Structures are given as structure tokens and as C-alpha cells.
């Protein structure tokens, strides 16, 4: 990363207002290769992240295929409209993040700060809605291992169809672990975008921070992709029936 370069100080002294120019590190052939090394590193990290969520997704697949009825019943207690709203919010934050990356490439300093700020606001809004949902789950006694009870409206069905109430609870175990892990990633993402916004504000980066903002963007979009899968997996199981 060019920002950690020992040459940076010298370059800054030689060209006091040259923050917008990228500095080529000695180990790279050209700036394109240097930028690619950074994005490639992030993609390798994201490949491990896919597997991180992959364990939960696999567990979900196993339980959903072995107990489809219980999982579908339990899923009906999630708030579909709030989930929809949150998906729109998160997709919107990906849009602002993409615009922030563009602004950094164009060295549009003010735009960059505005879009990074908007991305943080949207990310925080998502977490706020999530907190509202989790609170509602608590009051409906849906927290596994704490206050979980088969909801009253399902008791008759569970008895008539000989369903396993443990599998309904298991849906909420998966729900809280998946949305919780996603929320932790989002908190990290908001912090990361905040650090990038502060450093951009201080004009700490060379090259307009284009590589750093791009890599932060990759992480942010990854969080968005995870949610794109979680929403139909958790909220939209056979809403019809």
C-alpha cells in the first residue's frame, strides 16, 4: 500500500500538493499492477469470508431440507416488510459506495466525503432497523435458549402434524447467527468507511486514496451480497401458505 511507504514523506515534501498522484512502490512494475495486487488481496480475503458464512449457509441447507415445515412456520414470525426496507437501504448503500469509489478515482474530494458519509448513514440505518426487529423477536419470545416458546398460533399445527419444536427453535438459532454475523461485518464496514472518510478528509492518501476506497468498497459490497442471500433464505420461505 502506497500510504505506508517510507518514500511518501519525501514525495510529499518534494511535491507539497501532489496527494492526488499515486506513488509507485519499488516492488511493482507499474501502478496498474500495484492496484491489482491490492484488489486481489481483498478478493482472496473475501473468498475466506464466503466460507465463513458458508458454514452457516450449509447448516441452514441441511435443516431446511430435513425439516421444511418447521423452518417455514418459524420463518413466518419474521417481519417481511422491515426486511424489504432493509434490503433497499443496503442496496442503496452499495450504490453510494460505488459512487464514492468513482469520486476517489476522479479525485472529487468533496463528493467522496459526501458519499462515504451517506454509506455510513445507510449502514447505520440498517443496523437500527435490525435492532428494532431483534427487540420485537425478544418480546415475542423467539430467542433460542433464552426465552424461546413455540408461538401460540403454531401450537395446534405443531401437535397436529407432529412437528419438532426444536427445529423451529433451530431456525431462530440460524437466523440470529446469520444476521448477527452479518451485523458484525456491517459494524466493521461502517468503522472502516469512517476511517477512510477521516483519512480522506485529512488528505492522508496518495493517489486520491483510489485503491484504498476501492478495496473498502469490495468489502462493503460483499456485506451487501450476503444480505441479498439472507433475505430470501430467512424471510421469504413460502409466505404464501
Amino acid at each position, binding site marked *: 500500500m502506497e500510504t505506508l511507504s517510507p518514500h511518501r514523506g519525501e514525495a510529499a515534501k518534494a511535491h507539497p500538493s501532489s496527494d492526488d498522484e499515486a506513488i509507485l512502490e519499488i516492488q511493482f512494475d*507499474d*501502478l*496498474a499492477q500495484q*492496484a*491489482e495486487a491490492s*484488489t*486481489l488481496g481483498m*478478493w*482472496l480475503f*473475501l*473468498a475466506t469470508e*464466503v*466460507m465463513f458464512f*458458508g458454514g452457516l*449457509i*450449509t447448516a441452514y*441447507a*441441511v435443516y*431446511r*431440507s*430435513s425439516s421444511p415445515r418447521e423452518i417455514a412456520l418459524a420463518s413466518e414470525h419474521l417481519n*417481511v416488510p422491515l426486511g*424489504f426496507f432493509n*434490503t*433497499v437501504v443496503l*442496496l*442503496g448503500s*452499495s*450504490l453510494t*459506495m*460505488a*459512487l464514492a*469509489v*468513482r469520486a476517489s*478515482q*476522479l479525485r472529487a474530494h468533496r463528493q467522496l466525503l459526501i458519499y462515504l458519509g451517506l454509506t455510513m448513514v445507510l449502514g447505520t440505518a440498517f443496523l437500527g432497523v435490525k435492532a428494532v426487529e431483534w427487540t420485537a423477536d425478544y418480546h415475542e419470545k423467539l430467542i433460542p435458549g433464552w426465552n424461546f416458546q413455540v408461538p401460540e398460533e403454531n401450537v395446534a399445527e405443531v401437535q397436529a402434524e407432529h412437528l419438532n419444536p426444536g427445529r423451529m427453535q433451530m431456525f431462530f438459532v440460524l437466523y440470529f447467527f446469520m444476521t448477527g454475523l452479518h451485523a458484525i461485518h456491517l459494524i466493521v464496514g461502517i468503522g472502516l468507511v469512517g476511517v477512510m472518510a477521516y483519512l480522506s478528509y485529512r488528505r492522508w492518501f496518495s493517489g486520491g486514496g*483510489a485503491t484504498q476506497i*476501492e478495496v473498502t*468498497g*469490495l468489502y462493503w*459490497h*460483499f456485506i*451487501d*451480497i450476503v444480505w*441479498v*442471500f439472507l*433475505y*430470501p*433464505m430467512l424471510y*421469504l*420461505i*413460502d*409466505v*404464501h401458505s
Partner: protein
Amino acid sequence: MSHPHIMPVRTSFAIFIALLLLLVATVGAAYLPLGPLHFPVAMTIAAAKAVLIVLFFMHVIYSSRLTKIITVAGFLWLAIMLTLTLSDYWSRGWLDILGK
């Protein structure tokens, strides 16, 4: 030196609109009486959204072949894990094995 590809604002908004339309489609599909097709339909739409985000928002369409391979590989490992795990769970009980 080569400059990074700068995605036009119009492309960003077009992708955002497409993602919103796919979101509406996935919610709509959940209310249709699709029976066992619910899950495949929902996952196909989600995959389409993921592909749009990866290709455009994450600039993979403008990236080198090496980046593309690593991107695909990331999801390939997940596919391997799902395939092997589910082929085990789903096929249990297919054969009546003595002493099991």
C-alpha cells in the same frame, strides 16, 4: 501507466434499479404458489443480484483474468462444500444397510 476503469454514474444507477426490480421480483415470487420451486427461484434471483453486484459494483467485469478466477473460486469452494454435505445428508437412508 494505465488508469483504472471509471464506471459511469449512469451504469451505477442502472445496476441499482435492476437490483431493486429483482428484489421486488423475489418478494413477489414468495407470494406465488410455487410449492417446492420457491427455494430454487429465490436463490436464482439472489444469484442474479449477486452477479450484478460482483460484476459492476465490484468492478470484476473490468478486472484482470486473475481477479475473475479468484472471484469464481471463492464461490466454487462454497459450492463444493454444499454439494458434498448435502449429497451425504440427502442420501442417508436411501440404502438399507445391515448393521447401520
